[in-house]
């Protein structure tokens, strides 16, 4: 019976991957159609918005597929020394248009000069990117405090490694809520109702990606901001500082 359940899960997983792969094409068509309209001189600002929304959805699907690919290759993944500050800066750049659209201010805050961490670069980038989407969506729906809605991409040294994640100036996530979200996920439409109106799928995609690197998301604090972060192992091999 257990064996049959496992078989169903594998088949369902493959079917979902095929469906997701198929969903990428119409999103790509929409995104590039909107970009072409913009390039052709259309002044309709809706095209920029459509392009951004479709590109964001496309990246989320792509990040999900990456998590399934990495999970299937766990044990033979190619880890490399990765600079957390470079990754966070790059992600901030990629998230900046969405943050502007959602009236959030993005900040990158690295509390010190850290040695590279051992990670799968594309996986780490995709995880933090997916998390960023959720936090921007969540924060934009919350009231403004001190004149701004701030999303902070931050890293600091923790007891067992470099803690890197996404944090906000609103106190919207707690350990209890995150634990509950994990048990609700897959059983309810809103796993993180205190954070986002939707499913918050980006959080679970990020967690799956990080799990392939033997780490998990957890609730963390960074300079009075709260958020979700992962602890990453520093690379001793390339310690430059």
């Amino acid at each position: 019976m257990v064996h049959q359940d496992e078989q169903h899960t594998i088949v369902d997983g493959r079917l979902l991957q095929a469906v997701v792969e198929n969903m990428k094409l119409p999103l790509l068509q929409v995104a590039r159609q909107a970009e072409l309209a913009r390039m052709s001189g259309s002044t309709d600002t809706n095209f920029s918005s459509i392009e951004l929304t479709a590109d964001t959805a496309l990246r989320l699907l792509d990040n999900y597929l990456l998590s399934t690919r990495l999970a299937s290759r766990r044990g033979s993944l190619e880890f490399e020394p990765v600079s957390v500050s470079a990754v966070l800066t790059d992600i901030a750049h990629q998230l900046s248009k969405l943050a502007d659209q959602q009236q959030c201010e993005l900040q990158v805050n690295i509390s010190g000069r850290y040695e590279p961490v051992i990670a799968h670069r594309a996986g780490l980038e995709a995880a933090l990117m997916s998390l960023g989407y959720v936090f921007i969506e969540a924060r934009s729906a919350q009231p403004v405090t001190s004149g701004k809605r701030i999303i902070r991409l931050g890293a600091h040294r923790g007891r067992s490694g470099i803690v890197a994640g996404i944090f906000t100036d609103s106190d919207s996530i707690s350990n209890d809520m995150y634990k509950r979200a994990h048990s609700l996920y897959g059983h309810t439409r809103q796993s993180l109702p205190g954070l986002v109106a939707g499913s918050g799928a980006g959080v679970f995609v990020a967690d799956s990606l990080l799990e392939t690197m033997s780490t998990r998301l957890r609730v963390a604090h960074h300079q009075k901001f709260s958020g979700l972060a992962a602890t990453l192992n520093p690379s001793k091999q390339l310690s430059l500082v």
Partner: protein
Amino acid sequence: MAHILLVEPDISLGKLYTSSLELSGYSVSHCRTAQDAITSADENIPDLVLLEIEIAIHNGIEFLYEFRSYPEWQDIPLLIVSHVVPSRGALNPKSWGLLKISGYHYKPITKLQDLLSSVERVLSSDGVKAL
């Protein structure tokens, strides 16, 4: 005017890429299959090929090997624009030099503007310009 052979199985994306390239002053032949692409290249030698390797009937890699097997097409610059993740499958970065691939664009993260910049870069390094 530089002539581009676009091998793209999806009709909507093909039209989108064609329109954006034409807007930038290139002439484009859009083919949806490998056989059509070979016929098109025979009729009008392209200055650049844009290739999706996930095409129907023939595999895009097969097309690529066949295309490169003809001496007159061996030096035509070629950019891959694909849904396939670059490091996966037979077309890993190590084989790019062998097949004279000038660049690889992974579609989900490639904007039209990025593609046009690559086209311009490859053609200008080859001494060909848009009109």
